[in-house]
């Protein structure tokens, strides 16, 4: 117990960030399950953070309802945004969600209620490590159940082949919208928790590069199961510390190693780190080897 306390004293903020990043990565995982490349989840997190923060700072709402609002408002925003943009595909969807993210960021800079470029300060510091990990555990459980539900199979089938999915009676658009909204709500939750961890949120906290990071967590970890994005987020969030531990100084080398790891994963582990612990079923079997000739 003594050691644990000491460990947390040193690495507490890292542990918190791993949890929050993993939650954000899971939020994108739901969208990616349907093959939607969204760069909007960082912006949904920002919406959640500002909503919850403003409610507690300016309106003195208790923590729990503020957090709930921080999840619900991004969900509503996702409906409004999703209705027009989910008809776009691939990089076009990515660009549209990216534009949305920029507009949210610029709005945060220019509005008074968000505290402008300096950010919103004085947010009560309520979030603690067990809340983050409780939220993460619930989200991971939810994603795991979703993956093995009718909705989960439907989303996967949309990613694999939209036309074939439609011919099976799957209402493509409704499912996509649902996944988009669920992702936005999880992201909002992460943002709301973050706001109450940190006293301060600024428009820079959830910019374009955070949106890209979420994507990287998923790719490095693997998108097939809930533990993929969690592993990716954990590894990449802790990587600077790990590299420091083995003597790699900050700066270019650490950054270069980061890039190389990502490159190696995409080239040699197309299904991410998760495929190291759980080999996809029957991948190694080569059925055509037997009896090709009649």
């Amino acid at each position: 117990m003594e050691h644990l306390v000491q460990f947390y004293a040193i690495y507490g903020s890292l542990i918190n960030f791993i949890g929050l990043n993993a939650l954000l990565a899971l939020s994108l995982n739901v969208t990616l399950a349907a093959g939607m490349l969204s760069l909007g989840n960082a912006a949904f997190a920002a919406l959640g953070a500002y909503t919850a923060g403003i409610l507690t700072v300016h309106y003195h709402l208790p923590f729990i309802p503020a957090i709930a609002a921080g999840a619900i408002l991004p969900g509503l925003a996702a409906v409004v945004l999703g209705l027009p943009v989910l008809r776009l595909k691939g990089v076009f969807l990515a660009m549209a969600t990216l534009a949305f993210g920029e507009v949210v960021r610029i709005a945060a800079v220019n509005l008074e209620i968000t505290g402008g470029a300096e950010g919103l300060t004085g947010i009560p510091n309520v979030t603690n490590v067990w809340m983050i990990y409780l939220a993460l555990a619930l989200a991971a459980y939810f994603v795991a159940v979703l993956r093995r539900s009718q909705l989960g199979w439907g989303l996967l089938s949309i990613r694999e082949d939209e036309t074939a999915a439609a011919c099976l009676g799957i209402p493509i658009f409704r499912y996509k919208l649902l996944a988009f909204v669920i992702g936005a709500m999880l992201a909002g939750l992460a943002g709301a928790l973050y706001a109450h961890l940190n006293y301060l949120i600024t428009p820079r906290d959830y910019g374009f590069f955070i949106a890209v990071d979420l994507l990287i967590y998923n790719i490095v970890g693997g998108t097939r199961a809930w533990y993929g994005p969690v592993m990716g987020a954990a590894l990449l969030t802790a990587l600077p510390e790990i590299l420091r531990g083995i003597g790699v100084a900050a700066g270019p080398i650490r950054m270069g190693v980061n890039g190389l790891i990502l490159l190696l994963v995409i080239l040699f582990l197309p299904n991410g780190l998760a495929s190291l612990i759980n080999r996809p079923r029957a991948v190694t079997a080569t059925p055509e080897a037997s009896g090709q000739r009649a």
Partner: protein
Amino acid sequence: MNLFAQQLINGLFIGSVYGLFAVGYTLVFGVLDILNLAHAAVFTLGGLSALWLAQHAGWSIWIAFPAATMLAGLLGLLLNAVAFAPLRHRSDSQFSGLISSIAMAIVFEALSLGLFGARAVRFPAGTVKVHIWQLGPSVTITSLQVSIVAVVVLLMVALTLFLKRSRAGKAIRAVAENERAALLLGIDVRGIIAFTFFISSALGGAAGILYGLYFDSLGPDMGRSIELKGLAVIILGGMGSIPGAILGGLAFGLSEVLTVAISGTSNLRDAVAFMVLFAILLLRPSGLLGRARMREA
């Protein structure tokens, strides 16, 4: 009114640099249907290496410019060989290519950080002699601005003629149009794709040098500021369309300075641009000049 005219001129110049950057971006997309997110990192390295050649090797900018441009082109070849060629026949090549280009962008950014340091730097004084012409009361234009536009125009004319007239240029268009047909015509498709990366990255590097000269400031993170704008520009102009990229670049540059001029603050500068981008995506996803090529992801 004068302020307005001045802003218009400035917008034109910065817009032409955006356009040049975006042309390289859109060229790769037009041929391969892949977004190369390392383009901004090549832009940075191009600018920084020109600066290094001018400052430490003491070269004249007129030699350092083409040399650094070639260097950027070589980075493009590397990029293709490492991040794109190995993934080309994977079923999710569009998606995985996006990620591997992000990885290369990080590596390149680390490289520029390691080689050139983290601080913003500028070209040594007198790299280009700057004349200032007075066009009217408080409306000026500098010889640097004029040369930047001249270089951009020159490169665009050269690129257009190359694609329209030359054998290799036609081969690039054939590959963009239909890879299978190109193979059957005896075109070495792999070679042509590598060459496309070379040209695209060389143009990106050239844009980086001009950008550094114009703002008189370069740093390892300069690519970050233009990355988003470049994406916006090619969407605006139409993915894969070269005149579209130029037009989109100008439109973007003008919208930036005009928003500042009209609103009186720089806060809304990017907001207008991205709202326009958003509207374009919803109303005309193929962009201003793009063909309707909304392929599946």
